[in-house]
C-alpha cells in the first residue's frame, strides 16, 4: 500500500515536470515568434488607422499599400537586393573554399607548420587594433572606402569559423588522406576529391554562418560605404529607412519630392519584411546540419 502511494506521488511529480516543460517551451516559442507577427501585421495595415490606433497583433485595415510604396520606385530596393545576393553567394562560396582548405591543412598531423599558423590566426582574436586604426588603414591606405570590396573581403572568414572547420576535419579519419597518398594523389587533389565530400555537414554549418554574415551586414557598410554607393546592402538600406525620417522620403522617391501621403510607419515595417524574407526561408533547409554543427563548435570553441 505504502509503495503504491509513493509510486503515485512519483508519477505525479513526473507529470508536473512534463506540464511545466510543455507550457514554458510553448510560451517561449511564442515570445520568439510574436515580434515577427507584429512586424508583418504592421506592414499590412493602413497608415491612417495606425496613426490613430497604433500597431497591434492583427493588421488594421488590411492593405498592400506599404509594399506598393516599397516597390514604387523599384530601382533602389532591387539594386540593394542584387548587391546583397551577389555578395552573399560569392562570399559564401569563396569563404567556404578558403576556410575548408585552411581548416583541413591545419589539422593534418604531418603538417609541420600547423601550430604556428593556427596561433597566427588565433592571436587575432586575442588582440586587435580596434575600430579606428582599422578604419584608417582600410580607408586611407588600402583606399577601399566607397568600395564594396571593403565589405566583401572583411566578411570572408573569421578565426572562429576556421577553428570550427578544423574541428570538423579532425573527425575525418587520417586513413583517408593516407589512402589518397598511396594512390599518388597530391595534397590538394586529396582535399578536393576525398575530403570535401566528407565535410558536407561542416560546409552547411559554416556556409550558413557566412551567408548570415553577408545577408545581415550593416556595420561595415555604415563604416565604408556610407552614402558613397548607389545601392546599399539590404540591411544598411533598412537601417537608413528605420533611423532617418528624411532617408525614407529620399530613398523611396529618389528625388526631392515630398509625399504627404507617404505611409512612413507601415513603410518601415514593409521594408523590414522585404529585407529579412529570404534568409528565414533558407533556415529550415539547413537546420539539421546547423544544430549538429554548433554542437561540435561548442565542445571546443
Amino acid at each position, binding site marked *: 500500500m505504502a509503495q503504491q502511494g509513493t509510486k503515485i506521488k512519483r508519477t505525479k511529480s513526473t507529470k508536473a515536470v512534463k506540464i511545466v516543460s510543455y507550457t514554458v517551451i510553448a510560451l517561449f516559442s511564442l515570445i520568439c515568434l510574436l515580434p515577427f507577427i507584429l512586424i508583418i501585421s504592421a506592414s499590412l495595415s493602413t497608415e491612417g488607422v495606425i496613426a490613430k490606433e497604433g500597431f497591434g497583433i492583427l493588421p488594421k485595415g488590411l492593405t498592400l499599400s506599404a509594399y506598393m510604396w516599397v516597390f514604387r520606385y523599384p530601382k533602389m530596393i532591387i539594386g540593394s537586393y542584387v548587391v546583397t545576393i551577389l555578395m552573399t553567394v560569392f562570399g559564401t562560396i569563396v569563404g567556404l573554399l578558403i576556410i575548408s582548405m585552411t581548416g583541413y591543412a591545419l589539422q593534418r598531423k604531418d603538417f609541420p607548420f600547423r601550430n604556428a599558423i593556427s596561433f597566427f590566426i588565433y592571436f587575432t582574436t586575442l588582440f586587435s587594433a*580596434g575600430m579606428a586604426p582599422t578604419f584608417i588603414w582600410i580607408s586611407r591606405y588600402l583606399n577601399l572606402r566607397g568600395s564594396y570590396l571593403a565589405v566583401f573581403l572583411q566578411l570572408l572568414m573569421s578565426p572562429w569559423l576556421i577553428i570550427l572547420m578544423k574541428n570538423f576535419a579532425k573527425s575525418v579519419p587520417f586513413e583517408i588522406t593516407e589512402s589518397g597518398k598511396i594512390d599518388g594523389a597530391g595534397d590538394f587533389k586529396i582535399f578536393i576529391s576525398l575530403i570535401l565530400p566528407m565535410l558536407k555537414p561542416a560546409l552547411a554549418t559554416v556556409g550558413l554562418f557566412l551567408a548570415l554574415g553577408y545577408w545581415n551586414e550593416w556595420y561595415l557598410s555604415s563604416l565604408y560605404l556610407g552614402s558613397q554607393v548607389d545601392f546599399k546592402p539590404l540591411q*544598411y538600406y533598412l537601417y537608413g529607412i528605420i533611423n532617418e525620417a528624411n532617408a525614407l522620403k529620399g530613398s523611396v522617391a529618389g528625388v526631392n519630392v515630398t509625399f504627404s501621403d507617404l505611409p512612413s510607419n507601415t513603410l518601415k515595417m514593409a521594408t523590414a519584411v522585404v529585407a529579412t524574407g529570404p534568409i528565414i526561408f533558407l*533556415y529550415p533547409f539547413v537546420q539539421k546540419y546547423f544544430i549538429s554543427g554548433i554542437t561540435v563548435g561548442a565542445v571546443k570553441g
Partner: protein
Amino acid sequence: MKKNKTGAAAAAAPKKPFLKKLKDSRTLLLMCLPAILFFIVFNYCPLPGVYIAFTNYNFRDGIFGSPFVGFKNFEFLIRSGELWHLTRNTVLYNLAFIVIGNVLQIALAIMLNEIGSKLFKKVSQTLMFLPYFISVVLIGAIAFNILNYDTGALNSLIRATGGNPIKIYSQAGIWPFIILFCNLWQQTGYGSVVYFASICGIDSSMIEAAEVDGATSWQRIRYIILPSLKPTFIILLLFALGGIMKGNFGLFWNLIGNNSQLYSTTNIIETFVYRTMMSQNNFATSSAVGLYQSIFGFALVMFSNWLVKRIDPDYALF
C-alpha cells in the same frame, strides 16, 4: 587535445631541415596562404595604427605625422570619468547577459529534454532559433514597432485600456531592462540548443538505471542532468568572462543610436568608440578607448584561460 599533442610529438620525431619541411609541405602551405594573407592585411597591418591613441590625430598629417601627445588622451578620459562610466556599463551589462542568459539557457534545455513529442520539439526548436537569424537592424525595427510613443504596440495597448502612454525613448532608467530582454530574446534559443546537445550526450544507461530505481523526473534532473552540465557551464562561463569588455555592439547601436537622452545607462565601450569616430570624427579619443579595451580584454582572456587550465586542461584554449 591531448591525443593531438602526442601525435605531434611522434610526427616531429625525425628532425627534418627547415627547407626540406618547407618543400614537403608546400601544397598545404599554399592552401593556408589565402587565409594567412587575409589576417595579415586585415588584422596585423592595422596594429601599428594603435599609435593614434597617443597622438592628436588629424587627417592631413596622417598617423605618424600627427603631433604626439603621450598619454593625454587617456588622462582626459580618466579625469572626465568617461572611462570608468563606460567600463562599468559594459561590465554590468555583460555580467547580466552571462549569468541570466546561462541560467535561462540551461533551464530551457532541460525542459526541451523533457518534451516527448517529436513534432513539438522540432517546431519549438525552429521557433526558438528564429531570433538568432535576423539582423540587429530588424531588432531595432521591432523595438520601434513595440516601443515608440505615437504608434508603438505597447502604448496602443496602454491607450486602449485607458492608461497614460509612456515616452520610452526618453527614459534612461527602463533601458537596461529592455536591452537585457532583447539580448536574451536574441541569444537564449541558440544557447539552449548547445546545452541541450550536451544533455543528449549524457550516458543514457545512467538515466535508465535511475528510472529503474524509481527516480522521479525532478530527481533525475537534480541528481544526474544538472551535475553533468556543470563542466560545460563552468567552461562557457569562464570564456564569457574573458569577453566581458566586448559588447553586443550591433544590438546596442540599433536600439539606442545617437539618442543622447539614454547615454547615461546605455553607453558601452563599443558604442562610444563608434560614435566618437563616426559622428565626431575624433579618431584619437576613439583609438584610445579601443586600445584600453584591447589590452584589458587581452588580460582578461589570459586570466580566464589560466583558470580553465587549472580546472580542466583539456578545455584550455592554449
